[in-house]
Every structure is written in structure tokens, then in C-alpha cells.
């Protein structure tokens, strides 16, 4: 460890003899595209019309209520508040916001200390460059639903007490996990999953900017895989381009690889096996797992796939869906992938064989 920490550099002499190191000439610190293509203004935020309209009004009036954003990941919650802050405060927005998220220590003590000290700083209503700006600061509590209830409870008084100098913006996925007193103190905004077309447009824009070559239906696959999660879509695109290198086309298989999507072939095989014997199902499940496809992903996709199957009756779908729920839950809690997928398979087998009788 010590030598690892200290002598992580190649000694000069050996560097010359080392072919791979000499190849490297420059070090370009690539910023994630997610950061690079974050919306700069509120109006750039796609899809969330209601929120954008309200926020635009607020910004024009140079004031902000306490906010509570909720919605699935990758729908632009953090981006929106950051953009709003940027518009409100201009360049000095970094001094005016305090961002706390779940990975930071967020016990009651920390909330009290950090927020209090931050809130006590008075904000002037004039920017350094002389332009007027609103005299308050913003505390962003990301992933607020993972805060303990007691921490949330300690927050509610803090929100009220510092209303003069500070605005709070809570961001969470599930609004039901925020305690009532907090929700009632904030203006709630729901963020909806972003529409596929919007994601598609954005991806195409980024591709053009970055000079990435793509096969035609790559976008379709990406968009359908991410399910309205813009961040995932962009990350996925970047990963693909990294994996492929600069000048090669990205094809669908790359996308499958990167997102961990199970190709449709396996579902067909799986259902075929389910039509035969439980033993075949066991073999099939084994193969799927040896191919290293994650079971959780499989179950999720199987659900989508199943619904679109023509030759399975609605009743059968319902029965299988029932089992899917159980299996998904078990997997979530750490159940063995083999056993759970086999269970699903057997349930399918039972349903399908009944029909034949």
C-alpha cells in the first residue's frame, strides 16, 4: 500500500522501454456528457412544462418558494433547480447553493450545523458586478427520501426559521417517503418520465456535437431501454462511444452490452423451454445465467415482452404476471437468481400446459 501510494509513477528509465506508456501523449480529462449537456436555463429543460412555467414566473419575479421535486430518476430534477439557480444568481450561483445528498453524512446534527451556518450568512441583493439579484440562498437536499424521519422532522423548523435568507429545494424519487409537515411547507412539483421523442432528439444532438457515429436504430434501442431516464440514455451513449473508440460506428449489440439488456432471442428460447419440461427450464435458466445476464433485468424485460405477446391469453398473462411480481420481490431482497428464475419458469410452464389441456 505504501509503495502503491508513493511510487505510483513509472521510473523514467523503464518508461522508455515500456511500449504502452509511451503511446500516451496527452491526458484529456473527459467530463461526463451528462454534466456537459446539462440544461443551462430553465426553459431548456425538456418535457416538464408545468414546472418550467411556474419557475419561469418565479425567476422573473426574482423570488422562489420552497420547492419539492419528485419523480423517477433522470427526469431533470437536479438540472432544473441548478438551472434556476444559475439564472437567478448568474456566475456566483455556486456560492449561493448548498448541495447535500445521501452519500454525505446527513444525521440530524449535520443538517442542523451545516444548514444553520449556511443560512446565517446573509446574502446581498446585489451581485459583484452591480446587477441586482435575489437576497437569498438555496439549500438543495438531494435524495431527500433517504433521510431518516427524525432528520426530516428536525428540518421542518429549520425551513421556517430561515425563510428570510434561505430557500430549500428537496429532491426525491418517492414523495410518500417525505413526512407530511415538510410536504406542506413546500411547493410540490411532479416530474414525469421524459418522452421518447425528446430523448431521441437530445441524443441525436449530442451525437452531432461529439461526432459520434451511430447505426440507425441504435437510438431506438437506447430510448426504449432507458424508459424515460435521460441521464441513463446519455451515459449509455457515452459508454458505447468509449468502448467503440473514436471512429467506429456504434451498433445495437454495443448498446445491449452496455445497458445489460437481454436480447429478445433469450425470451423466445425461455418460453420455448417452458413449453417443454421443467428440466428444460432449469437448463435454460442455467444457460442464461452463465451468459451473465442479470436476473433482475431479465424479469423486468420479460414483463414488457410478455405483454406484447399475441399468442398468450390475457388470463395466462395475468397468472404469469402474478408470479413475476413475487419473483421480482424475492430477487430484490437478494434471492438466488437461479432458483427464482426457475420458479418463474415453472409457473409459466404450469400456465401454458393448462391451456393445452
Amino acid at each position, binding site marked *: *500500500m505504501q509503495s*502503491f501510494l508513493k511510487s505510483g*509513477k513509472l521510473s523514467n528509465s523503464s518508461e522508455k522501454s515500456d511500449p504502452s506508456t509511451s503511446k*500516451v501523449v496527452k*491526458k484529456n480529462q473527459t467530463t461526463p456528457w451528462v454534466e456537459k449537456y446539462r440544461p443551462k436555463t430553465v426553459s431548456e429543460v425538456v418535457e416538464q412544462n408545468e414546472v418550467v412555467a411556474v419557475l419561469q414566473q418565479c425567476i422573473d419575479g426574482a423570488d422562489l418558494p420552497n420547492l419539492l421535486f419528485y419523480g423517477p430518476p433522470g427526469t431533470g430534477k437536479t438540472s432544473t433547480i441548478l438551472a434556476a439557480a444559475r439564472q437567478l444568481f448568474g456566475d456566483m450561483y455556486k456560492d449561493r447553493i448548498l448541495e447535500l445528498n445521501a452519500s454525505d453524512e446527513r444525521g440530524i446534527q449535520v443538517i442542523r450545523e451545516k444548514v444553520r451556518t449556511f443560512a446565517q450568512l446573509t446574502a446581498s441583493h446585489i451581485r459583484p458586478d452591480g446587477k441586482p439579484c435575489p437576497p437569498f440562498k438555496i439549500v438543495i437536499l438531494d435524495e431527500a427520501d433517504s433521510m431518516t424521519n427524525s432528520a426530516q422532522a428536525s428540518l421542518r423548523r429549520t425551513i421556517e426559521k430561515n425563510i428570510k435568507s434561505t430557500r430549500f429545494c428537496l429532491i426525491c424519487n418517492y414523495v410518500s417517503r417525505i413526512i407530511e409537515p415538510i410536504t406542506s411547507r413546500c411547493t410540490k412539483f411532479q416530474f414525469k418520465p421524459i418522452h421518447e421523442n425528446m430523448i431521441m432528439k437530445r441524443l441525436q444532438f449530442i451525437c452531432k456535437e461529439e461526432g459520434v457515429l451511430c447505426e440507425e436504430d441504435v437510438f431506438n434501442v437506447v430510448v426504449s431501454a432507458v424508459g424515460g431516464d435521460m441521464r441513463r440514455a446519455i*451515459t449509455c451513449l457515452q459508454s458505447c462511444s468509449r468502448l467503440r473508440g473514436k471512429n467506429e460506428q456504434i451498433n445495437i449489440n454495443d448498446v445491449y452490452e452496455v445497458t*445489460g439488456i437481454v436480447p429478445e432471442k433469450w425470451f423466445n428460447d425461455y418460453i420455448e423451454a417452458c413449453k417443454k419440461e421443467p428440466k428444460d427450464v432449469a437448463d435454460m435458466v442455467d444457460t442464461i445465467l452463465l451468459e451473465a445476464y442479470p436476473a433482475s433485468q431479465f424479469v423486468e424485460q420479460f414483463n414488457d415482452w410478455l405483454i406484447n405477446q399475441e399468442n398468450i391469453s390475457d388470463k395466462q398473462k395475468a397468472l404469469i404476471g402474478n408470479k413475476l411480481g413475487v419473483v421480482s420481490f*424475492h430477487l430484490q431482497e437478494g434471492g438466488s437468481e437461479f432458483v427464482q428464475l426457475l420458479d418463474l419458469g415453472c409457473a409459466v410452464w404450469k400456465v401454458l400446459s393448462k391451456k393445452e389441456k
Partner: protein
Amino acid sequence: MSLWADKYRPKDLQKLDYHKEQAANLSKLTQEGDFPHLLFYGPCGSGKKTRMMCLLKEMYGPGVERLKVENMNFTTPSNKKLEVTTVSSSYHIEVNPSDVGIYDRVIIMNLIKNVAQTQQLDINGQRAFKVIVLTNVDELTKDAQHALRRTMEKYISTCRLLLCGTSISRIIPAIRSRCLCIRVAAPSIEQISTILQTICKKEGLTLPLELADRIAIKSNRNLRRALLMCEACKVESYPFTPDQEIEEPDWQIFIKHIANKAIKEQSISTLAEIRERFYELIIHGIPSDIIFKTLLKELLKISDPEIHPQIVESAAFYEHRLQTGSKDIFHLEAFMAKFMCIYSQFLGEFVDIC
């Protein structure tokens, strides 16, 4: 390095025997002298680690092969002393945080902070970042994974993480989305068989095709096990014969015995005997989920197809309980009893029909 499994391990990305396209992609990845956080996942013995080391070698040259084993000490906030073994070269450090059980979060926080905060001033002589290899990430506690997620973003300028795990189902999406996930599927039977043949050729031995295939099948597409089995066969009797007996790990045979016992007689006394055997398996350090999985496979092999769905359903139920509980023996035995119950009922009906 005299075991075949160690001796013939590929050291370069170009020399990998299978998933060549992926290897080429990885090689491209290193061309820019930088790579994102990576997450290798795949079943046991599919060569995740081998690929990882090849990648590192591609990056840093042969220096990464100069490894040493060291122990690092950490102290938890509650003042408990932890010791983990690390394998490191001058360029990377490898650690298995799940060695310390529920304190893995401490290791992750401290280790990464340690590594990331000591930045070399002289940037010319090295990469701008260090590599931390974390193995068995799927066994990390949720706490540790959450800790990881923020650290990954925070220290991206000074360190890269290479994660390695058997399945990504147990890894939280936040980590998955921050890594470039690389799926390492197990080699196919044919691939294993070919590899066995080439290695035997290198050793100056002739391996019958048939035996190679049999070993490959028996190894359950686990290359490491296949190589070990092959070598064991060679030790057992050299000129190979196609129908030679292949040594299996003892624990597998043991589980087979348990399954047979359960089929033979269903009573509380059998249950008691089987309990002893479960204890023996646990004592030998066989992980409970592996016991469960193997046992289920064996039971399905020897029982009648009509009752399979029932067995599988109860297996799924108790396996889940096993994961959420702490006393494995309870759940193993509960499943066993359930199986016996189902089976004896089935036999009863069978007798009735006759």
C-alpha cells in the same frame, strides 16, 4: 505457477481465448490513456479477473504483475480494528471489502479517500489516476454501495474503480449507471474443450476430444474448474482414456447423497440425519445459496416431473427466506421437509392410482 490454471492464464488482452471482440474493445478503451469506472460481471470461472489484469497490463505495462500482498488496518467509528488483505502493485490496489462483513463501508470510504487524496505532483511520469480494484462487489452491503456511489463521482479525477462481481442484480442501479458494465459470459462448452486441448498439447499430452467435452460439460462452463479437473484426471491416470472417471469436488457428491437420501425415505429420522449433513456442509464453508441451488438441481434430476413446479415453488420461497434470515440451517431443513412432504404425498397418490 505450476497448476495449469495458473500457468496458462493469458496475460495480455490479445492472447485471450474467447470474447475476442470484447477484448479488442477493451484494448481500444485504453488507447486514450483513460477509462471510465468499469464493472466486470459474470459467473465464476469465466475470466473476469483475468480480463481485468490484462486490461491493467495494457494500461501500465508489465509493472502491474509485480504484485505483493499486504495487510491494511482500519478502525471503525466504534473503534473496532479491521484488517484486510490487499494485493497491490505500484499502479493498482486490490481489495475484497466483503472480507470484513458489515464493516465494508469503512473500508471503502477510507481506502478510496486514502488513495484518491494522495495525488502525485509529478504528472508526467504516470497516469493521472490510480486504480482501485474491488472484488465481490455484489456482496457489498447496501450501505457500502451507497458510500461507493458518491465517492465514485467525487474522486473521479484521481482514481478509477474496477469492480468485479458475479451478478449485477444485487448492485444498486446508481452504481451500475456510473460504470461501464462489461459482461463476461462463461465460455461455451466448445471453447472450453478447445482450450483444454491446446493446453494439453503444450504440456505434451494428448487429450481425447471426447474426454475434453465431458470435462467441459461436467465443469458447468467454469473454465477454472475444467482445467483443475483435467489436471486431476491427468494425475489419476495418464494415458487418457475417453471414458475415464472425472474427479468432482467432494461437496457436490455429498449433496447428491443428501438428495438420494431424501428420495429414499421420508421421515423425521431421515430429516435428522440430513440435518447432520447440512451442518457438515456449512462447516466446510460451502455458502448456503450454493448448497440450496445444487440441492435443488439434484432433486429435480431424480424426482418426477409432475411435482417439479411444487418443489421449485417451495424452493423459491425458502431460498428467499434464507437470504433474509440468518440461521441457514432452519431454511435448508424447512425446504427439505417440504420436499419430503410433497414427495411422499405424490407417492401416496401414485399408490392410490395403482
